[in-house]
């Protein structure tokens, strides 16, 4: 099975009834979301919606993964 079809079927299967947060809302809250996730802190309602959006949107998921990597380097630089 080609990867795009597998990914598409999985995305379709995971589609929720509600639309959830959009990409712009995700952008506005991603720094807070990533920071709290790295610290293991709880999520407010908005951040719960961001978590759901990240499962839905590969682009935002990519941004989130890279942001957590970047923040680790910013807060804990190698050799510190």
């Amino acid at each position, binding site marked *: 099975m080609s990867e795009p079809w597998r990914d598409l079927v999985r995305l379709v299967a995971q589609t929720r*009834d509600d639309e959830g947060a*959009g990409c712009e809302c995700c952008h506005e809250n991603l720094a807070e979301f990533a920071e709290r996730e790295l610290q293991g802190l709880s999520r407010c309602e908005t951040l719960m919606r961001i978590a759901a959006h990240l499962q839905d949107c590969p682009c935002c998921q990519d941004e989130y993964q890279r*942001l957590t*990597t970047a923040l680790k380097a*910013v807060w804990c630089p190698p050799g510190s």
Partner: protein
Amino acid sequence: MSDLESNELVPTTGTTEPSGDAARIAEMADESARKWVQRLYGGRNERAKALEELRSILLRGLRAAFAGDNVSDDLFEDAVQDSLMKILRNLDSFEGRSRFESWATSIALRTLLSELRHRRYQDIPLASLSDPNRGVSSAQPDRSETSPDVQMMKQQVVAVMHRLIDEHLSEHQRSALRGVLAGIPSDVLANRLHLQRNALYKLLHDARQKLKQGLAQEGYEGADLLSLFE
């Protein structure tokens, strides 16, 4: 650097006081975030020092986030320069819900990621996204599955998906799905389809809902599909 020192890009009149934003800044829970904003709203020298410090932080974050992506030093530098200008322009929108460096890093990351995505996909012609004989309609599952039963079930699902896409989606939705199947990131795809990214997200969400409902009517439920296509 000269651009960054121009008053045109600075959100206040360049005094050391945070001007009309004093109340907002005072509400920021993080003392470090307050100081960053005050320095960036501050006088020329103070602002220049803050920008240089921020430049170094952003570069460190971007280099880590894009390690292995073959990004040139010039591109890193350009992205940071663009990001610093965006950060100054949008300083009013920083609410202090995260550390300032985290907020700034998220802007820099998006700036570079967007640039890389546009470069990577700029040669894919828009026509390929609207040609009904390419993308969705021509994509076929491979033949590498070891279990004939599983392979057959997957092919049946994809065949149903093809039909649902052809019969139940609008042309706009089909174009967006072709882009997704071609692996085009949503910000690039939105630009190609002349949509805001939020509008593309909604368009795709509606399309996915139709496909999910159609699959359910054919007896394919979400959990079974996830298990089959894990």
